[in-house]
């Protein structure tokens, strides 16, 4: 039984990472209708930033998270305002193409700057964990989950308790009406994308502590973010949280099914996704469009 509890805990911890990665992705998708295929690359930029700060200035990875957020915010704002904004009213396919290309450029730049060497952030406390009743909870992972939940809380507060957030929600609801009431669309689009990128950067910072990073390591995360959004739904922060935690649980529990190799974990996760799409297309907690 404690083995099962351990798997559930690991699933929730992994889910925390997926929540962190998916928050920014779902914000950009829900409000701007952009499926950002470069999201994983932004995550990895955050990872590299944390790694660079850790190795050069010995800044603890968790303390570097606000720096990641700030830097990625600026990057995201510039990217949106300078590049993506030009096709904001174009059909969805164009945003796919553009963000796909952006992903290639970012990854190649990272390869040039950092090369393909695997890097890892290993702070002194990286092995420590809570040991309770036969179950181990690594501190780093627990911290990652807590940061993810705090991020969700911050996003909710931004969206529901600030003027900027109200603007973002307005633009997401009806962009022309929002313009009519005087909202500067371009600026708000850029802010939204920047917030999404900032969250991606923080997620990247967390990821660097337990995974080795290399420029191409971000691509799987784009896919996971996509899956989390489908599972949980768009339109609400709680949807992303629920989707992320559930996806993490499915992946880890899928690996432990007796008799099956863990290759089936991926298959199981995506079967669940297809079921959700068929039975409840708006996701578990998503708002209808």
């Amino acid at each position: 039984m404690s083995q099962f509890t351990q798997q559930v805990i690991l699933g929730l911890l992994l889910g925390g990472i997926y929540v962190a990665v998916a928050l920014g992705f779902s914000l950009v998708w829900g409000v701007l209708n952009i499926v950002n295929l470069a999201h994983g690359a932004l995550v990895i930029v955050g990872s590299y930033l944390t790694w660079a700060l850790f190795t050069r200035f010995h800044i603890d990875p968790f303390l570097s998270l606000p720096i990641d957020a700030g830097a990625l915010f600026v990057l995201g704002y510039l990217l949106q305002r300078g590049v993506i904004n030009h096709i904001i009213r174009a059909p969805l396919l164009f945003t796919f193409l553009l963000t796909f290309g952006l992903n290639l450029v970012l990854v190649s730049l990272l390869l040039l700057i950092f090369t393909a060497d695997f890097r890892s952030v290993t702070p002194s406390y990286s092995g420590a964990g809570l040991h309770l009743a036969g179950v181990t909870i690594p501190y780093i992972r627990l911290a990652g989950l807590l940061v993810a939940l705090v991020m969700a809380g911050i996003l909710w507060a931004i969206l529901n308790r600030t003027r900027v957030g109200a603007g973002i929600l307005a633009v997401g609801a009806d962009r022309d009406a929002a313009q009519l009431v005087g909202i500067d669309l371009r600026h708000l689009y850029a802010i939204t994308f920047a917030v999404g990128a900032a969250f991606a950067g923080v997620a990247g910072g967390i990821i660097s502590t337990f995974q080795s990073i290399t420029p191409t390591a971000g691509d799987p995360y784009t896919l996971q973010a996509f899956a989390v959004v489908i599972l949980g739904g768009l339109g609400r922060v709680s949807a992303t949280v629920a989707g992320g935690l559930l996806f993490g649980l499915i992946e880890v529990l899928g690996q432990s099914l007796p008799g099956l190799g863990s290759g089936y974990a991926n298959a199981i996760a995506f079967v669940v996704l297809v079921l959700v799409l068929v039975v409840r297309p708006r996701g578990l907690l998503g708002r209808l469009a």
Partner: protein
Amino acid sequence: MRGKRIAPILAGLGLLLTACGTANNGGSTATSSGAPIVFGAAVSLTGAQSKEGGLTKQGYDLWLDWINQKGGIVIGNVKHPVQIKYEDDQSEANLSATLVQKLITDEKAQFILGPYGSAATATDAIVAEKNSIPMVEANGAAQAIFNKGYKYTFGVLSPANKYLTGVIDMAATLSPKPTTLAMLAANDNFSVEVAKAVEDYAPSKGIQVVFSKQYPAAAPDVSGLVSQAKATNPDIVMNSGHLAEAIAINKAAKQLGLNAKIFAYSVGPSTPDFISALGPDANYVYDGSQWTPQVKYTPSFYLSVADYVKAYEQKYSSSEPPDYHVAESTAACLAFQKAIETAGSLDPGKVRDALASLDVMTFFGQIKFDSRGINIYKPMVVEQIQNGTHYTVFPASVANGKPQYPTPPWSSR
């Protein structure tokens, strides 16, 4: 009258002198420079295996500099300078095959040097066979490649089934003897072969396999599997996969408190990245290696082991000696060089036959191919990371260190 006769005499003298001059040059091996020999290589310079692909290219380029500095490969009396044309297969096996065909058809590659990884090697081998162009590869150890009856593909490295069995042999000599083994394997053709070979071999040495699971190659999270492995209390924990997964499993083992007496990973610990990524957590880890800078081979041509290490450190401004991926890639070039020289021709069929009957000792070890085309004559060695440095610990005849056994628990490090 005299002036008219002097001119032809002078001309004749001139010609004589020129001939003498050329003859003098001909006194040292070859005289003229022939057409360049073009090799083609599709290597993973980007993508999930870009690190290992980069090491492969380093191995090829080291030999390229050396051979061109000597003027090229000698055929008869002519030195042919060498060109290697590279394409980036982005770590995609199918793209690799397309690029090899392009190298042969458009870029006129006469011979093919192998890619990184068994997956891409398997697809490239099909193209080499179809075009009847010899390919010598150094980074695809899966025996599945060589069980298809191809005539034009040769592998200078030891096959996959030998990768971790050396660790089992070593474990059998240690005391207290480990008795249980957990195997986590990626599900690509190379890793599965390595894992299966260990699982078949271990019981014969009294080691029982108590856990064995596969995961999708390049899976982002392995903590669930590591936790399951921990529940079976293994003495030996092995991973058959690649660098990223080895790092992830080692980290997860530390975080979840999996304390084994032996941690052995097939690929990963031999690369410098493993130590720099993990720091002190990398200590005590074993791996099976195709080659280490400590091996004692006396080569019949090309550089000695020590000179090779020096050449590498100089060319790539590295304080670390080359890892085995670099060395085995150079060995592939050496096999081609010797085969072309022996065949005395650039005809693909003749070079292929020369490769099939090749038997030569190099800094990398013996290069000789069995009837399937894979080098079963060179042994694998076992390395261990001790205090941030690699030591060859088994077999004793080539070792420069002793295994630090058993691995202390994480909490007391």
